[in-house]
């Protein structure tokens, strides 16, 4: 944590409620995001218990399984989830912008025009926290290699003992893609609410405690008459007369006391009704289980929308459309991979793909840091405190020229009143943030005692002897210079995956769909419950 965010947390303690950690909203929010709250069966890996989802806060869709060990019911839930999500996910693929670019044929040198499609919009999925993101990734991993009876028939192979409903493997590929994209800093296809809120507010508790959505919201938006700390403690610990949490965990795991006190007995009753072949009773028991699960999902669902309201009240940062375009490209290329009939994403990336992803994440992190600093004075303040930027009011501008060339060029000296102490020696290159054009400067002198820093502008002033009007700041104007470049560098090019050197494992081997019982999903034994 930086000193500035620690300071903000201390202010939150003092004020009894969260304080802003950002002055603008740093993540794109769709007009109609898909909100999704998953619950997992305890003890099983990647076994869904229930999902609440939808785009309308008043009428969520509820999917549940009455017996999480029943693999048919589990896959039925995933099929329902696919039926809900896939039309929505695929729907963004139809409307496209056409972009043209000129490409030069490397052999002939001939220039041709290439037209590419970029989907006009992309889906956005919102979940409670990072654990839900991981759970969706796990669902993706457990389903994308599965084979349905239909595809097996098409391919003329045996579907194996456990064919899955048709669209489930496709859902798995999309979930895998969304989870993958969520690893890219600043991306917004799949977002976790606790991360979103934590980026924009500082609470009076630790980051660890901020993982609890109810406690986090209690600090940001405490109910009347309570401090954030009091409301958060209630969210963490308050239980009703039956020992059930008033604010159930946001999942994907449920409260153990919910499992032991309510869910397990209800499942036992369901199992008993099934054993007696009493379909009516079984259905009634199933409805009871659904009602129990709905009751623990609904509070989280409502909190997600509350969080959305809070985030929407913040003004959008200037760079959001640019970063969202990256998400649109990501969506478009996945759409294209599926349309081209490519195989599902491999279990593990080959060396080149892994290196590419890593390089991309680093690049995007740099870009995000820069853009956030440009968009938000609070983010820039971090850099100023670290001596990587300076900001202040111009007190003097002195015309000066570079006379070494054939014609003199403008190199004016700008003196700024600031208490910032840039960590750089005279001659250090600086970049002007928020100026009319991209502009370089160099540090000339700094006088901390007087609170003055003088810089020399080096370019962006036109070709004449006198600078273009407006290109040099005037006395009284607020300016900001950074010691870091304001565009992220391109990293060194990496080979295409097909050209992976043998030292790094060679080109990737395509993994084919499998219906092996132990890989990736085997039936959970009928043990337990």
């Amino acid at each position, binding site marked *: 944590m930086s000193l500035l965010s620690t300071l903000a947390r201390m202010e939150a303690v003092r004020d009894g409620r969260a304080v802003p950690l950002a002055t603008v909203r740093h993540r794109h929010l769709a007009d109609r995001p898909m909100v999704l709250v998953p619950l997992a069966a305890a003890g099983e*890996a990647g076994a869904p218990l229930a999902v609440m989802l939808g785009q309308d806060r008043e009428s969520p869709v509820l999917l549940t399984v009455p017996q999480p060990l029943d693999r048919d019911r589990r896959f039925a839930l995933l099929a329902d989830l696919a039926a809900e999500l896939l039309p929505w996910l695929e729907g963004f693929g139809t409307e496209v912008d056409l972009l043209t670019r000129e490409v030069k044929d490397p052999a002939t040198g001939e220039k041709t025009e290439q037209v590419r499609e970029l989907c006009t919009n992309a889906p956005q999925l919102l979940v409670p926290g990072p654990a839900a993101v991981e759970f969706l990734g796990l669902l993706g991993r457990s389903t994308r290699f599965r084979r349905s009876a239909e595809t097996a028939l098409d391919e003329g192979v045996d579907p194996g003992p456990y064919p899955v409903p048709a669209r489930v493997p496709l859902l798995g590929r999309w979930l895998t893609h969304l989870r993958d994209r969520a690893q890219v800093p600043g991306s917004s296809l799949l977002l976790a609410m606790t991360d979103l809120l934590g980026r924009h507010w500082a609470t009076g508790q630790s980051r660890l405690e901020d993982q609890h959505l109810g406690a986090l919201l209690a600090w940001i938006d405490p109910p009347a008459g309570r401090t954030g700390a009091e409301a958060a403690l209630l969210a963490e610990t308050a239980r009703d007369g039956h020992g059930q949490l008033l604010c159930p965990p946001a999942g994907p795991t449920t409260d153990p006391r919910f499992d032991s006190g309510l869910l397990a007995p209800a499942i036992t009753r369901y199992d008993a009704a099934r054993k007696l072949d009493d379909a009516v009773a079984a259905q009634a028991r199933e409805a009871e289980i659904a009602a129990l699960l709905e009751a623990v999902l609904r509070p989280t669902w409502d909190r997600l929308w509350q969080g959305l309201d809070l985030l929407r009240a913040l003004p959008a940062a200037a760079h959001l459309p640019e970063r969202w375009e990256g998400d649109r490209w990501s969506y478009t290329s996945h759409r294209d991979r599926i349309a081209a009939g490519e195989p599902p994403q491999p279990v593990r990336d080959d060396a080149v793909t892994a290196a590419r992803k890593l390089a991309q994440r680093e690049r995007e992190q740099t870009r995000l840091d820069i853009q956030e600093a440009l968009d938000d004075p609070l983010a820039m303040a971090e850099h100023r405190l670290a001596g990587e930027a300076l900001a202040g009011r111009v007190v003097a501008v002195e015309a000066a020229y570079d006379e070494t060339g054939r014609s003199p060029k403008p190199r004016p000296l700008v003196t700024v009143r600031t208490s910032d102490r840039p960590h750089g020696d005279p001659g250090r290159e600086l970049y002007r943030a928020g100026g009319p054009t991209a502009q370089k400067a160099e540090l000339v002198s700094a006088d901390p005692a007087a609170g003055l820093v003088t810089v020399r502008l080096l370019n962006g002033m036109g070709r004449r002897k006198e600078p273009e009007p407006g290109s040099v700041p005037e006395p009284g104007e607020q300016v900001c210079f950074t010691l870091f470049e304001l565009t992220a560098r391109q990293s060194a090019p990496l080979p295409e995956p097909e050209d992976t050197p043998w030292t790094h494992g060679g080109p990737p081997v395509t993994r084919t769909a499998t219906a092996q019982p132990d890989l990736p999903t085997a039936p959970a034994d009928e043990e337990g419950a």
Partner: protein
Amino acid sequence: MNDFIPGRPAPEPPQSPRLSPSPLERRLAGLRGDAPQRSLDARALAALAANPGCGRRAVLDAAGVDKTDLATRLGNPAPFGQSPFAISRGLGFERRVKADGCTVLLDLLREQLRLPEDSAPVVFAELVDDPGLPAGRVASARVALAAAAARPGVWTVLDQPLLRLEVAGSTAHLEPDLVVVRPDGRWTVVEIKSFPILDGGADAVKVGAAARQAAVYVLALRETAAALAGVEPVRDPYREPEGLAGAPDSTALLVCPKDFGNQPTAAAVDVRKPMAVTRRQLDRLTRVEQLLDVLPTGTGFGRDRSDGQLAAAVGALQAVYSPDCLSACELGFHCRAEARCAGSVETLGRGVRGELGSFHTVEQALAAAAAAVTAPGGTHADTAGGTPSDTLADTPDDGDAESALRLARAAALRAEALQTAALQAAAPVGGAG
């Protein structure tokens, strides 16, 4: 995995081989009074590594005070629990691993430890399993290990043997899932866990916890082996003693479900590092005596104490709270409430203290920041750059002055940024700056 299941009956009070308890034992028992006893187990010992500096925990653990019970009595119950689904899944998996006379398990062991194929017979040790007889259980496990050592070339499987480890004068009872004596005479600790090994990898946090737990078992086995060999135990985990004393292998076998199914798979885990860490923590526990010395006379945690007395007794033990305690220690919520009450900066995160220099409370730190900000011209370097101590007359030393200055800089920058944003929001077109 049983050590992670809360609420299992605590074993009987340890029966010391000595005739009378040591003075320290007597003092610790006196502290506990008639409160229910919870003897140290592998989980408690392994968790010491999570917060070794905490004297409160060290004393309570050494005295065998049941912290779950204590937390409830203090009005801040521990939030831990395990779902019955997870428990039954865990038990089911354990049964599966041990099925068919441990055939699968021994195959995994050979494969992971790169042991040659063998057709050695497999013997299942007869162990006392009455939970009411811990001393009998410990003795029978020792006998079984001695017998196994006397017949090389055979596999001997000890299913949930009870081991003991002397810790600062009190006895810890430890129950590994399995200890396997190999035909080559080495002893391997087997831990069965129900988290999956997915595509060859597993949750690092969970593997770490399992390794720390296994490390405690290997330490206990080393003491047992040394006792059987009639030599002093070697304390350095990186040194393997000769002969029988060196039988316990410092590589443990972790058995988990493979991918999303129920098929067992395994990984060999080198536990020498967690052994060294735990060894250090345990040695530090002997300082419990010094911790006891500072307690006011009459301090105790018995059932006869009023809530106020109990809170005072706990308060007399020095805590080292950090938010990590919330997931590692039963008293987490209690210690957090106490730390919040004191306004301590540790509640905001591990490492915050380091950032704030010598300011221990939120109030002090904010006051220091504000003092410099509100001092005339304090936000501007032209005055603040002079003598910081002028504006911070009541700060004791230079380190403080420096942290105060940094805080003041941060506060000024934060205030300026918020003001800039407010101005921009008020006049969205163009920038008032």
